[in-house]
């Protein structure tokens, strides 16, 4: 069944009509009121660490140069590549995403890049997380700057599901960084639940006064523990029969979905996905291993959320793409343009966006890399605008925005 835009409008209209005839359970009323404003929208950023290859993700099977450049590692329709639009196809392991594409909820953009080309993982990741390429002194993150623009100071506005604090959320706005929502509590290990409760109370007291960073951090910890404890929606399992795969994409997106459902005022979620994306050798095996759980996680996320997907804009990014030609180890090296994946009600789905620069010798950057056609910063600003944060000078200071890439509504 295709998902056409008029259906979305119908659902919103139905909500309003239901209010009109006096049938208005509180939750519906709240959702309708918020649907009129932007207060329910959630931006989810999924970061694939390592520089995921775009050419084998969004396969340009219609371009003969692709096959010339990658004689052993290029993918063909016969290998299971799923056609998207007659020129591009999906990596076979990403097959579950075909359905989301047909529904109009998923879009791809295979030529996103960064003017400050760097082939260093650490620099490139930092530049993308701070949104300030070339600036090595930047201390705060772009999502942090987005969150600051949103009224309110709740800890739950900005959440990162990651083992380490990602640079994107660094900064003065409180944020919640954790790996496991359900285990975010004081667990003393013995003495029964009573001792854990008592320890929590005593330690909370110890941190209440005190100006140093440790005390301040402690207050945030206990605030978060309390908030999470009193929100049963966070403890529930996936809805609608969604099944998430094991691994960081699965656990990250499962919890992102819980946060969306829990309605705690969460507006930005960052999911960190380490993996073997840095495919310098044996790329086919690496991609097969990583793309399958990524696709399964995205699919489960959509299924889990049901109609709530309307209020979500999820973007999958990586710090750079990879060289157009294969190397001597059946892999690829650090490149330039990467492919972004976009999912949710905020996305103009069912399309592969962007112009195709081609893979001929003259078309490649430095004779090695697919060129980009859109600066990642314009994608980020567009996403922030969808979220209701429309002052680009605060989100990405000093950047003169280019045209809106048109990926989002």
């Amino acid at each position, binding site marked *: 069944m295709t998902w056409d835009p008029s259906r979305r409008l119908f659902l919103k209209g139905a909500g309003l009509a239901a209010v009109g005839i006096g049938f208005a359970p509180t939750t519906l009323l709240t959702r309708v009121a918020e649907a009129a404003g932007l207060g329910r929208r959630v931006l989810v950023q999924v970061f694939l660490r390592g520089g995921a290859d775009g050419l084998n993700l969004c396969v340009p099977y219609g371009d003969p140069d692709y096959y010339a450049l990658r004689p052993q590692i290029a993918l063909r329709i016969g290998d299971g590549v799923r056609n998207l639009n007659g020129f591009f196809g999906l990596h076979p392991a990403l097959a579950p995403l075909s359905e989301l594409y047909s529904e109009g909820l998923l879009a791809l953009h295979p030529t996103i890049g960064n003017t400050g080309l760097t082939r260093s993982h650490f620099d490139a990741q930092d530049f993308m997380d701070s949104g300030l390429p070339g600036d090595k002194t930047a201390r705060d993150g772009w999502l942090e700057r987005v969150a600051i623009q949103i009224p309110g100071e709740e800890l739950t506005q900005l959440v990162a599901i990651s083992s*380490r604090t990602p640079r994107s959320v660094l900064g003065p706005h409180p944020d919640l960084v954790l790996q496991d929502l359900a285990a975010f509590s*004081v667990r003393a290990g013995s003495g029964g639940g009573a*001792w854990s409760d008592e320890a929590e109370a005593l330690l909370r007291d*110890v941190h209440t006064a005190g100006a140093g*960073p440790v005390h301040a951090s402690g207050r945030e910890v206990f605030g978060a523990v309390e908030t999470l404890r009193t929100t049963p929606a966070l403890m529930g399992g996936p809805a609608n029969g969604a099944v998430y795969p094991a691994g960081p994409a699965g656990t990250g997106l499962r919890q992102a979905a819980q946060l969306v459902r829990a309605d705690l005022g969460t507006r930005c979620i960052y999911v960190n996905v380490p993996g073997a994306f840095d495919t310098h050798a044996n790329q086919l095996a690496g991609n097969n291993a990583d793309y399958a759980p990524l696709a399964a996680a995205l699919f489960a996320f959509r299924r889990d959320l049901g109609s709530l997907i309307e209020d979500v804009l999820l973007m999958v990014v990586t710090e750079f793409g990879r060289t157009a030609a294969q190397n001597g180890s059946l892999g690829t090296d650090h490149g330039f343009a990467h492919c972004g994946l976009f999912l949710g009600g905020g996305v103009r789905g069912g399309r592969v966006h962007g112009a195709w620069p081609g893979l001929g010798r003259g078309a490649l950057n430095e004779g090695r890399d697919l060129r980009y056609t859109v600066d990642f910063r314009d994608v980020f600003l567009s996403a922030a605008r969808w979220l209701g944060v429309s002052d680009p000078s605060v989100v990405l200071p000093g950047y003169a925005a280019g045209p809106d890439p048109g990926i989002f509504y």
Partner: protein
Amino acid sequence: MRTSGDIAEVMRTLLSSEEFWSEAFGPGKIKTPHEYVLSGLRAVGAEVTSARSLVEARGTVGLAAMGMPTYEALDPTGWSDSGADWIPNPGSHLARMNFALRLVSETIDGISVDIRNLIGNADPGDAAAVTDAVDQRIFAGLLPAEVRAACSRVSASSSLRPAFKVIGVALASPAFQVR
């Protein structure tokens, strides 16, 4: 600069400067998770027969939970050794506190603790006495008032003696999070 690089003079200036002494003996730098775990083990005189639960990558009680899985730093520069990069991070901070609590109650695989080394002759059922012992042995008498107050208030319950609770709270407190 006056003495044109005379090392002895430079050292003298450094050692007598305010900044040096405030760094060394002031509020203290925040420990990295690694330092925190090691100092905790030492403070209670723990016997570690297997460090696996502390270092395994998927572990829920050790360094991985604190965001510092051993040898798994992504950057070639390795893990930051500046404590300020580790806190604030609510997940990591909570993991530290849980580590302290579980360490003392001996619910971490491969680690056993005999608190008599720490509390000496103090009666394990007497929270105030144990608090004094901990203050002397671990904090050199500098245990902050609010931590002392919390330690003294631990309840006596049949499942866990006050001594364990006092040590757990002290190690989880901000006082032990800094060097």
